[in-house]
C-alpha cells in the first residue's frame, strides 16, 4: 500500500514540476515577445532620429506591431534602404512594386524590407513624379531587384538607369501601347479594339444579375 502511495506522490510531484516548467517556458516566451516588441520600437525610434538626414516622414497609415510605413524622399531613398540593410539587418527584400496615384500625378514606389531577427517589416514608400518617372536602381543591393525593375519599366514605364536587362521584354512581347498597369490604360477599350466578339456569347451585368438571382429579398431594399 505504501508503495502505491509513494508512486502517487512521486507522480503528483512530477506533474507539479511539469506544470511549473510549462509556466516557466510560457513566461520565457512572453519575455522574448516583450523584448522583440521593445527592439521593434527601438528601430522605429532610431528611424525617427534620422528624420532630417534622410528626409523621412510617417504617412497616416495604420501600422501593425510588425509593419511600419515610412515615406522617404526620392534622393535619399536608396541610401536609407542601404542603411536599413547594412546597419539594421533588414536584409530581405520581400518585394518592390509601384502604386499609381493618377489624381495626385504620383507613383508610390514600395520597397518592403524584412528583418529576420525581429520578424519586422518596414515599407519604404517613395513618391515620384508620374510625368518623368526615373528612380535610382537597387540591383547592386539585391540582384533579384533587377527583375522587379524590369517589370516596373514594362508595366508602369518607370526607368531605373543602369539596371541590367531593363529594356528587354519581360512578360509582354512587342508591346506598343502605353504601359498597361498605368491607371489611364483602359483594358476594356483595348480588348474591344484588339479582339472581336465571338457570336453567341451572353454577358451579364454582375450587380443586376446577382440582384435577380441571389438576393431577391435584399434587392428590394436597395
Amino acid at each position, binding site marked *: 500500500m505504501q508503495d502505491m502511495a509513494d508512486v502517487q506522490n512521486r507522480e503528483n510531484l512530477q506533474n507539479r514540476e511539469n506544470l511549473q516548467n510549462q509556466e516557466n517556458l510560457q513566461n520565457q516566451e512572453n519575455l522574448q515577445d516583450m523584448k522583440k516588441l521593445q527592439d521593434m520600437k527601438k528601430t522605429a525610434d532610431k528611424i525617427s532620429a534620422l528624420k532630417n538626414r534622410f528626409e523621412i516622414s510617417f504617412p497616416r*497609415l*495604420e501600422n*501593425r506591431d*510588425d*509593419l511600419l*510605413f515610412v515615406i522617404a524622399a526620392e534622393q535619399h531613398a536608396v541610401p536609407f534602404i542601404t542603411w536599413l540593410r547594412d546597419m539594421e539587418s533588414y*536584409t*530581405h*527584400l*520581400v*518585394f518592390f*512594386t509601384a*502604386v*499609381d496615384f493618377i489624381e495626385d500625378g504620383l507613383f*508610390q514606389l*514600395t520597397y*518592403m524590407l524584412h528583418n*529576420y531577427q525581429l*520578424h519586422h*517589416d518596414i*515599407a519604404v514608400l517613395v513618391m515620384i513624379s508620374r510625368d518623368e518617372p526615373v528612380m535610382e536602381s537597387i540591383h*547592386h*543591393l*539585391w*540582384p*533579384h531587384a*533587377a*527583375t*522587379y525593375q524590369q517589370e516596373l519599366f514594362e508595366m508602369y514605364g518607370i526607368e531605373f538607369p543602369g539596371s541590367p536587362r531593363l529594356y528587354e*521584354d*519581360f*512578360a*509582354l*512581347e512587342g508591346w506598343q501601347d502605353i504601359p*498597361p*498597369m498605368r*491607371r489611364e*490604360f483602359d*483594358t*476594356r477599350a483595348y480588348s474591344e479594339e484588339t479582339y472581336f466578339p465571338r457570336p453567341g456569347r451572353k454577358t451579364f451585368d*454582375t*450587380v443586376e444579375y*446577382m440582384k435577380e438571382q441571389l*438576393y431577391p429579398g*435584399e434587392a428590394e431594399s436597395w
Partner: protein
Amino acid sequence: MVDKRLKRSAEASAYKKMEPEPVDNPKFPPVKDGASQYDLNSGKYLKVWQGPQHPGITGNMSLELVTTGDRIVECRTHVGYLHRGFEKLMERRKYIQCFPLVCRICVPEPDFNEYLFAAGAEELAGVEIPEKAVWLRTLTLEMARLTSFLMWIGGQIGAFGMGTIGQWTVTMRDYMLDRFEELTGGRIYHMYIIPGGVRADVPQGFFGRMEETLRKVERVMDDIELTMFHNAVFKKRAEGLGVIDPALVDVYGVTGPNARASGVRRDVRKDSPYLVYDQLDFSIVTDEKGDAYARAWVRYQEMRQSIDLIRQIMAKMPKGEKGGPFFEKLPNVLHWKIPAGQTYKRAECTRGEYGFFMVSDGSEYPRRVYVRGPSYSHAIALMEQIAVGANISDTAGLMVSLHTYPPEIER
C-alpha cells in the same frame, strides 16, 4: 586622398561576386564583369531553348541556355507565356468580384491566395472573424500544402526519369481533391475562404474520411521513401545539383524549403505566426547541404509534418454547433467600401513566402493588389545563378527542385 565615391562603389561591388562564378572547366569561356564572354560563331558553344513547349519545363516558361559540350555556360529565364493581367483586372472589380480571380493566380495551391486576399481585406476593413473560421482556414491551408507537395513529387522524380512514382502521388492528390470537393464544393479552385470567414462548415463524417485519406497517403509515402530517396539514380543525379549557398539566401530573397535546405531556419508559420499556427506543435525542418536532394528531403519531411498538422487541427478544432459560427455577417458585399489604407499579409506556402500587398483608397474597388510569389526570385535571378555549370540533362530536375510556378511570376 581616396575618392569617397570610388570607395562606395567598391563596397557595392562586393555583391558582384554573386554573379556567375567562373566554373573550373577549361572549356568554359572567360567571365568578364559577371558575364560570360562567348562567341556563338566559334562553333564551341550552342544555344538551346528549353521551353515553352518542352516536357522538361515547369509550366509556361522557357530557358535560354548556352552550352559547351553538355554543360550550361549561361542561363536566361523568359516568362510571359501566361500573362493574364490579374492585378490589372482586380483594379476594376469590387472586392468580392476579385475572388474568382485570386485563386487562379496559383493553380496547385489556390487557397493561399484566397486566404491572403481575404485577410488583407478584413484587416483594412477591421473585420474580426469567428474562431471556428480561423481553424477551418488553417485546415484548408495545410490540406493545400500537402496536395501541392504531392504534385511536386511527380514533377521532381519525373524529371529524373521515374514516372511511376509521380503516378502514385497524383492518385493520392486526387483523393485529397475529393476531400476538398467535400469540404468546399470545388476540386481545383475552391473559393472557400471569403472575407468574414469561410463558406461552409465541415460536413458530417468528414474527419473520418480525411483520416482514411491521410493513412492512404502515408502508406504511399513509405513507398516513396524507399523508391525515391534510396534510389541510386535519384541520389546520384540530385546530390550536389544546384547547391544554394546560405550566403545567397538573403541576396536572392530565397524563402521556404529552398532556404531551409541550406540550413537557414526560416518559416513564416513559426516566425510570424498567423491563424492558429501558434497553437500547433511542430518544428522547422532543415537540412544542410542545400542541393536538390536536400531540398527534396526537406519537402518530403514537410509532407509528413502537414499530415501531422492536419491531424492536430482536426483534434483541436471546436466542433459542431458548439464551435460557434463560421462566418461573420458582412455589409452587402456588392456595395462594400473599405476604408483607405495599405497592408501586407504573408503566409508560408509550399514554395516559400507568399504575400499580398493591398492598397485601398476608400472606394469599392481595390486601388492596387500586388502578389508576392516566391517563384519570382527563385525562377529568374536564382535559377540563372545556380544553373551555370550544371549538366543540360539535369536542367529539368533543377528547375523542379526549386519548385517554381510561372503563374505567380506574371500575375
